[in-house]
């Protein structure tokens, strides 16, 4: 049985997150990556973590038809990277927007550097934004990560 692509992408992004630093570029940020739909609220997660990443359910369509038979069935998985401004003793230690940049660098490096013969992963689309929800200002980037079995 092949490896679950969602779990594979989660592990690749999790590795990238281990290299993310806080604003001072030396202290490692505490990051967590989860499947969407877990039992915790974002407020609970941001009490403990600087960066919260969730992996959602995929969408896709068959590609490269030869005589109407598809060669590949790629699926694009949404990966949401969420950050907020975090303070320690009144000092801003993680700036939400800057943490987005730090995460993007690491995730792009980790995914673009994946060279496997059994599968390909790449970022096909990303959308950044900021929203105020429940009294929290959240910076969010949604990466659509395409996984194709070779």
């Amino acid at each position: 049985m092949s490896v679950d692509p969602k779990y594979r992408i989660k592990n690749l992004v999790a590795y990238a997150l281990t290299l993310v630093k806080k604003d001072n570029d030396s202290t490692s940020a505490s990051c967590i990556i989860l499947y969407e739909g877990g039992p915790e609220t974002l407020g609970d997660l941001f009490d403990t973590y600087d960066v919260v990443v969730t992996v959602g359910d995929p969408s896709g369509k068959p590609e490269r038809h030869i005589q109407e038979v598809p060669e590949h069935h790629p699926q694009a998985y949404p990966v949401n990277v969420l950050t907020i401004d975090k303070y320690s003793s009144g000092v801003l230690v993680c700036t939400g927007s800057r943490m987005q940049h730090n995460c993007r660098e690491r995730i792009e490096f980790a995914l673009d550097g994946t060279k496997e013969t059994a599968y390909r992963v790449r970022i096909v689309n990303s959308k950044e934004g900021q929203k105020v929800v429940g009294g929290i200002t959240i910076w969010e980037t949604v990466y659509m990560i395409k996984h194709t079995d070779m």
Partner: protein
Amino acid sequence: MLDPTRFISEYGEEVTLRSRSLDTDNRATVTGWPPVTWTESEIMMYVEQKSTKLLDAGGGMINEVRLRGYVIESLSQEDQVVVRGATYKVEMKPEPFAEGGTVIYYGLMLLEVAA
């Protein structure tokens, strides 16, 4: 005015509270979700029927039943209560009702956990 504590004791009913705990130190390997455990106890709650809706979940119909509950104890969001055999979850953070700066009782929005 009737004391809220006495009102809930006299006009409320005994329900089973299932308090939720998340073991965030032992997250699941695949999903990253913490395991959920439940601790049961009995409390008094004054219950009001709030709403019942029949919704199309796309593939079937589902009943959505909401209650309003009033309790003395502080519950947490996502705790569950069993009211007359049906299980409801505390949908939102409980609302505290205070007098003179002291919380006397809490209001809860309960959503039936469909079987």
